[in-house]
């Protein structure tokens, strides 16, 4: 295996040089997909209209109709009822995550107003508290990402400021690149063996993590077995997830070098902190299984535009509402690899 890898390494000049060098982004042999999550309406506004805090009318056009929503609110005339109304709200169906970017109470002069919710009908209020009649106001759909946006959104309803950290691609040293390159070579080697066995040539590999081998003390590789098992769901990614799970069931905790012991919660959970390398972009089922498993990142060699769940037919970690995100990267230059080329799949296959 050493010969095999070193022969391949030889053709990759980026692997020669000091192991500690940081490799330039455009020289990396893979491209990271940018997950386009919710649209950043503030940036659109800042750039296209050059708006300022005073330009609410422009902004409100920009916010209508997709960035604001009609919400039910009610005035609370007596200050001391605010606390009891907030308590009532906590125990009602109205206390939903989707409104957590808005303050619940708006104070304007002597008037306090309570945000109730975005239901079609006005909510039923407790009858033993003196309140006004519920009415509707437009409120922002999303938290404010910038101070400018905060001022603008506050003119509708008090909004939470949740600045997003600027996305900076992780720095890759040559040593880490070698780790990834070895993983891709392991995939290819297995893929050649699998292809001659009559199975679909799809291979998934979870190597020992680069950063902390204590997270997973050995590497796991699995290939697609839907043909031999006659089970249409025995995909490479699900198979390797099962291998890692079975291993972590038998060794749920391991003492670490610093003497501390991993608990069941945290880093040893499923694929937390781990990287999956796979020959073909995983299908929607496998992409969601990887999201459920809290995988850290997924590298694939071949996109599957019609069936893939990591940017092909859908982009599962970019969906609104899912509770985990993972990085997606596509290994470049596979088509140049000549006879080392791995096996392409028919477009309708779910990898």
């Amino acid at each position, binding site marked *: 295996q050493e010969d095999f890898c070193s022969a391949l390494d030889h053709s990759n000049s980026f692997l020669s040089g000091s192991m500690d060098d940081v490799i330039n982004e455009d020289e990396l042999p893979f491209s990271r997909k940018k997950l386009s999550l919710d649209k950043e309406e503030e940036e659109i506004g800042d750039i296209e209209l050059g708006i300022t805090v005073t330009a609410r009318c422009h902004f409100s056009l920009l916010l209508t109709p997709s960035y604001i929503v009609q919400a039910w609110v009610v005035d609370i005339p007596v200050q001391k009822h605010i606390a009891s109304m907030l308590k009532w709200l906590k125990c009602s169906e109205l206390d939903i995550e989707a409104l957590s970017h808005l303050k619940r109470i708006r104070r304007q002069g002597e008037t306090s107003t309570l945000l109730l919710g975005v239901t079609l009908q006005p909510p039923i209020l407790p009858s033993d508290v003196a309140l006004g009649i519920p009415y509707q106001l437009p409120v922002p759909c999303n938290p404010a990402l910038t101070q400018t946006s905060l001022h603008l959104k506050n003119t509708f309803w008090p909004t939470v400021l949740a600045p997003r950290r600027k996305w900076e691609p992780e720095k890759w040293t040559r040593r880490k690149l070698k780790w990834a390159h070895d993983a891709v070579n392991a995939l290819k080697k297995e893929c050649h063996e699998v292809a001659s066995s009559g199975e679909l040539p799809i291979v998934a590999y979870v190597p020992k993590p680069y950063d902390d081998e204590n997270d997973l003390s050995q590497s796991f590789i699995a290939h697609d077995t839907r043909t031999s098992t006659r089970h249409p769901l025995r995909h490479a990614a699900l198979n390797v997830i099962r291998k890692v799970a079975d291993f972590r069931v038998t060794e*749920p905790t391991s003492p670490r070098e610093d003497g501390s012991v991993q608990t069941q919660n945290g880093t040893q959970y499923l694929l937390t902190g781990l990287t999956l390398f796979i020959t073909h972009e995983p299908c929607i089922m496998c992409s969601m*299984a990887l999201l459920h498993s*809290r995988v850290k990142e997924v590298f694939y060699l071949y996109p599957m535009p019609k069936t893939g769940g990591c940017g092909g037919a859908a982009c599962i970690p970019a969906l609104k509402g899912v509770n985990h995100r993972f990085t997606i990267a596509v290994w470049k230059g596979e088509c140049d690899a000549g006879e080392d080329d791995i096996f392409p799949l028919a477009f309708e296959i779910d990898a």
Partner: protein
Amino acid sequence: MADDHHLVLGSDRSDADSVHVNWMRVAMTMAEEALSAGEVPVGCVFVRNGEAIAKARNRTNELHNASRHAELEAVDLILANDDHHHDGELPTPSNRYPLSDTTLYVTVEPCIMCASALRQLGIKQVFYGCENDKFGGCGSVLGVNAPSEHPVHPAYNAIGGFLREEAIMILRRFYVTQNTNAPVPRQKGTRVLKTEILSRANSS
């Protein structure tokens, strides 16, 4: 969600629906079993020709494997028992799509993973209890069952609203307790079991 493939029952239920409710009660017994085992309480039953061919429930915590949802557990039981494989035969609809004559009853809308798995297996149709706002693959988060195109796999109908309130309440009973297997548990000591349920039309 306005298309024919993602339907939600209204309040007027016909007698024909009582068959579905009865199967959903079977699925609910599996959800109860999951709850007693400390698992997220989701249960299901697969029905073929009026008979249950597999019942299962969530086993993700026990197996440390987040892909072991009720539906996939049951599918493994079915494919282990099924005699749909015959050496040397050309593929037919029933062995290419082993669930093409099978209906699923599941207490919660299948997640995106399971919805895709069911499509790959050619499921006939799906009835579910409550919608799944975080992961639902039959319209709530992504329409894997029908609106999404797939080059070959047939679409299927997924109809919600059967024993919906029971499905929601059993999930709430689970979530007021600590899920010790989830990563970084939140403090839930102050959680209160809510009992009011908004109708789907009024919820956001």
